[in-house]
């Protein structure tokens, strides 16, 4: 019998202050989550929580929650100091790590540690997946631009290659992380130099909306990360997610309303009928521009 779909809570992509983060996770601890990802994946200058703080939080969570706790690594690793932090993360000696850069893959493979391949790794086909499985990847979170069809084909291709098939986790809810830059767009929007950013991204708990000159929401600025303007929501695509072989659905934290989001996904995985349509975008899943809602453009 197929095992029940798991729900995971992705790492918080925004910069929240320490109290907000701790309150958020205290709240999440009682939610029906199977995996909780912790850590800073966007900007190494965000230091409200250090590695020891994350590890301490992980210990607390493991006492009150059944969820597996995973540490997520930085996506754009440039400075020597960032590489050193990544090494410490991989050497935590306890928790599984999500690699979001091939540098992390290398460090984890050197240590022979199994790892999660995060959405910031460019893995698009079975042959590439086989390489990562050989390096120790046990769970794959595809790049957010992948369609359901591509993911299904990649997994099928992998199955033909005689390697262990990793778990499949799909980014199912939240602002999509779309791009990483050396430049901090939040600092730029506030006319501050990056080296004197004053942590201004903390003033935007869900990033800054970037609109077209006609007022269309396009992107969300989140420090060096650019996210989708719309929230991606694949709840109405639940049947397709199941058919695709997804083992986990990732819900990416927002500043408010996560309990309701988790409740909705939890109900559907327990057998409730998924909604026919829901707000937010899901174009990528249907092989269309990511910003689209497939139902609206007549694709479903």
């Amino acid at each position: 019998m197929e095992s029940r779909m798991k729900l995971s809570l992705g790492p918080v992509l925004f910069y929240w202050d320490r109290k907000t983060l701790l309150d958020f996770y205290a709240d999440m601890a009682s939610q029906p989550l199977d995996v909780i990802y912790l850590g800073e994946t966007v900007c190494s200058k965000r230091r409200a929580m250090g590695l020891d703080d994350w590890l301490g939080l992980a210990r607390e969570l493991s006492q009150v929650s059944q969820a597996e706790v995973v540490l997520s690594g930085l996506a754009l690793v440039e400075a020597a100091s960032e590489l050193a932090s990544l090494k410490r993360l991989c050497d935590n000696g306890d928790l599984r790590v999500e690699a979001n850069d091939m540098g992390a893959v290398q460090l984890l493979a050197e240590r022979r540690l199994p790892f999660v391949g995060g959405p910031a790794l460019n893995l698009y086909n079975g042959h590439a997946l086989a390489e990562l499985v050989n390096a120790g990847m046990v769970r794959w979170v595809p790049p957010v631009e992948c369609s359901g069809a591509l993911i299904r084909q990649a997994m099928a291709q992998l199955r033909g290659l005689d390697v262990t098939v990793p778990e499949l986790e799909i980014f199912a809810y939240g602002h999509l992380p779309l791009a990483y830059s050396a430049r901090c767009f939040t600092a730029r929007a506030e006319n501050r130099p990056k080296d004197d950013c004053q942590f201004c991204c903390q003033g935007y708990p869900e990033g800054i909306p970037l609109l077209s000159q006609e007022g269309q929401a396009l992107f969300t600025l989140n420090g060096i990360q650019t996210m989708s303007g719309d929230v991606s929501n694949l709840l109405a695509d639940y049947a397709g997610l199941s058919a695709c072989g997804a083992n986990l659905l990732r819900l990416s934290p927002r500043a408010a309303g996560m309990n309701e989001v988790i409740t909705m996904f939890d109900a559907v995985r327990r057998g409730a009928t998924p909604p026919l349509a829901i707000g937010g975008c899901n174009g990528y899943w249907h092989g269309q521009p990511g910003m689209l809602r497939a139902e609206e453009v007549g694709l479903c």
Partner: protein
Amino acid sequence: MHLVCPAGSLPALKAAVRQGADAVYVGFRDDTNARHFAGLNLDERQLETGLRLIREQRRQLYVAVNTYPQPEGWERWRRAVDQAADLGVDALIAADPGVLAYASRRYPQLNLHLSVQGSATNAASLAFYQERYGIRRAVLPRVLSLKQVRQVAAGSPVPIEVFAFGSLCIMAEGRCHLSSYLTGESPNLCGVCSPAKAVRWSEEPEGLTSRLNDVLIDRYARDEPAGYPTLCKGRFMVNGQRFHALEEPTSLNTLDLIPELAAIGVTAMKIEGRQRSPAYVEQVTRVWRAALDAYLESPAHYAVQPAWRDVLAGLSEGSQTTLGAYHRAWQ
């Protein structure tokens, strides 16, 4: 330092060779490379002609097979690797671990370069590709400061190539899905960014307007110069202000950095622009050849000639150039 120049056509390849490129990089005529534009790239016959010229002139030919294959396209990518190996190219530029694995196992003698699309920005990442696939060079994304390039080069197991001149990707190459979010086609999967087929220009009451898949990218006043609507270079609204929220239309130009990059031990300088005309390639290559020769001749007395700067400014987006991320203040 080697000068690596782009060619999207046989005339561009000839121009690059004529003006002193040490190596020319090209792509096949399909989506296996990151400049998959209509009418661009070389067919088999043109490649053979180009390679003959390159051999006569004792230069090098690199082939980019640097997009990420989708499962159904795998055979096409494999054939592209086979074709490059059969041609006897001097290097294959690739990013996908599956493609690199195939190339290194099937053709152990084939010289592999990690493409900028591989998005390797640190020594550990470079070690991954070197240990597993034996890459012999890596092209670094345009997101690193000079200090970071120095750090990465110092810890790198392979020689480093950096971008010298051309269009400036504001995002880490290989780490940007903005184009597919708006148009469905991205550099990683389709070899295009802000694809021409999604572009629409219109005269509207508010001014000349450029759109990408119906999304307004920019709008120009009567005398304002208008540029191609690459989506990261449009003007958008952020916190009630209209400005180039991501990046201005500008080109990367690192003529000033040649001494620093040489001191770091950078092996090769890459000119961007396989989508550019032969005349563009000709002029840019000429300037860079002159600059690198001047530096080699007398490193202590190297100075950027105003004439070089003028030529490059004339060929740059919005006639502007920048040191980009190499200069920390840009970030």
